[in-house]
């Protein structure tokens, strides 16, 4: 195990931000910490990085790994150019090859705006520069704290593709926090956090099967008779439609085959990450 957290806990006064979190991160894996605002994601990440001291619990690395971090906010200087910013950071590390900044700018497609001031870049360009900054020391683990928050969908996709490419090509271990559910969908390991606790952990598929119910909507000329023949209670009922929430696809198939004659149309929707997330964290706003 590359990185392990045991009973990681952080309290701020009375408020428990992170509550006995256990984590295991394998080398080369892609982990998404998923949770609503204020769930404790960033606090957890800051403890993993070593910027924050846990109130209790431990963080264990199997050796002394090189870390790269993309912070939630900008940590580069607005009035310096992209090249200057990256050169300054490169100068802060030992054993960084002289052409590292140039190589990174080509890999991440920054060449067009290397001479531009960081403060004048668009949100997506900034994010790419931030990622380049995090990669300067050729890290073993890349942490990203809400890397795509506030970006448009095209840019989100581009950033996401970039991070996945880096993970694949460089055998990078990636840990990121997000509250976009679709992003968690493609992670190897999804950890759902709320109120500082881990609510669920596993692959996206695992979590969906476990926490997101499938939905079957049946259209029928005789809704009353159909309802009487299905043992389950529908979650929604209209003049010509019934909707059931089902644990598995098999259950849906059973209903469909048994009542074939009464069904004029149907729609089956497997459980989504949204369903799982809402089931886990509740519908309340915070």
């Amino acid at each position, binding site marked *: 195990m590359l990185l392990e957290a045991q009973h990681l806990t952080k309290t701020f006064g009375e408020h428990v931000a992170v509550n006995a979190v256990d984590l295991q991160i394998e080398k080369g894996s892609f982990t998404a910490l998923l949770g609503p605002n204020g769930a404790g994601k960033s606090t957890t990440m800051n403890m993993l990085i070593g910027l924050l001291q846990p109130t209790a619990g431990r963080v264990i690395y199997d050796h002394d790994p090189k870390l790269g971090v993309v912070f939630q906010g900008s940590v580069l200087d607005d009035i310096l150019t992209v090249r200057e910013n990256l050169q300054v950071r490169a*100068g802060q590390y030992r054993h960084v090859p002289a052409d590292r900044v140039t190589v990174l700018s080509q890999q991440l497609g920054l060449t067009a705006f290397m001479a531009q001031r960081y403060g004048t870049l668009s949100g997506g360009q900034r994010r790419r520069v931030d990622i380049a900054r995090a990669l300067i020391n050729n890290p073993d683990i890349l942490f990203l704290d809400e890397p795509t928050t506030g970006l448009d969908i095209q840019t989100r996709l581009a950033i996401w593709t970039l991070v996945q490419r880096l993970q694949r090509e460089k055998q990078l271990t990636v840990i990121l926090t997000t509250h976009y559910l679709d992003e968690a969908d493609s992670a190897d390991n999804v950890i759902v956090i709320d109120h500082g606790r881990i609510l669920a952990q596993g692959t996206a598929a695992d979590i969906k099967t476990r926490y997101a119910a499938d939905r079957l909507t049946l259209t029928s000329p005789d809704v009353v008779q159909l309802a009487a023949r299905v043992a389950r209670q529908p979650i929604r009922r209209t003049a010509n439609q019934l909707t059931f929430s089902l644990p598995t696809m098999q259950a849906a198939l059973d209903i469909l085959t048994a009542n074939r004659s009464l069904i004029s149309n149907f729609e089956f929707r497997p459980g989504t990450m949204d369903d799982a997330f809402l089931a886990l964290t509740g519908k309340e706003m915070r």
Partner: protein
Amino acid sequence: MLAMIKRNLLLYFRDHSGVFFSLLGALISFVLYLVFLKKNMLASWHQMPDAKLLLDTWLIGGTLAITSITTTLTSLALMVTDKEKHIADDLTLTDAGPLRLFTSYLISAAVIGTLTQLAMFGIMWGGFYLTDGLTLSGTAILNTLGLMVTSSLLAVVVNAAIVQGIHTVDSLGKLGTIIGTAAGFLVGTYIPIGALPSFAQSMVKFIPGSYVAALYRQFLMDDKLKTAFAGHLATRHTFERLMGVRLTWSTLLTQQETYLIMGLIFSGTVALVFGLKWLQIQHRRQYLRER
């Protein structure tokens, strides 16, 4: 560390309006002095030969001392800004190490302090050259240039001791206003130390900048004092004491003694500032080792 110093300097000098106002801030007390106080003081010195030039050099010395204090404080604000904007978090992840990062802030502030004093010196001398025909000897200029570096270093460590306890840019700005206002009185630039009540006089002697101002005046005024007080050593000493050209402990301090005192203040503050920083780092290391 070099990369970091370069960054700090770039950030300072690329902000042109920032540089302009920083110079203006140092210049404003000088201009106000010329407008409101110079005539008054000249009137009381009228029987002295070269009174104008003496007062000019006296003022340059005091203003340079103020400049060293205020500009280094403003430059150290970057340390607080970086903390507030979480840039410091990013920097601690690098291999540079907290002590070297801290030192790079101090060095860049000292460089900025020296350069600003140099600019101020040029502006003031130029102005007095045009109005009063002020000239300075080569030794005076060399000594003054050397003192610019020393005074910046001293001001940086003293200010760093203060800034370490401050965590927001907002409160640092307020502190800057207070120090900027007080500095002129505390180092005896606006009102000669001899004209102050005795409590205020002792307070002036507690401010490191007062020794800087005294040394500047010794270097810049020496030639003029020699001619003005030729053969009247006792009168010269009285004048020097009153005008803060030399500060008094039990007797008038010599140049060597003044330098020694500055050296002691410098080493003491360096020990304090770096000691505190070192303790902070040890505390953090210990935690990291335990995990």
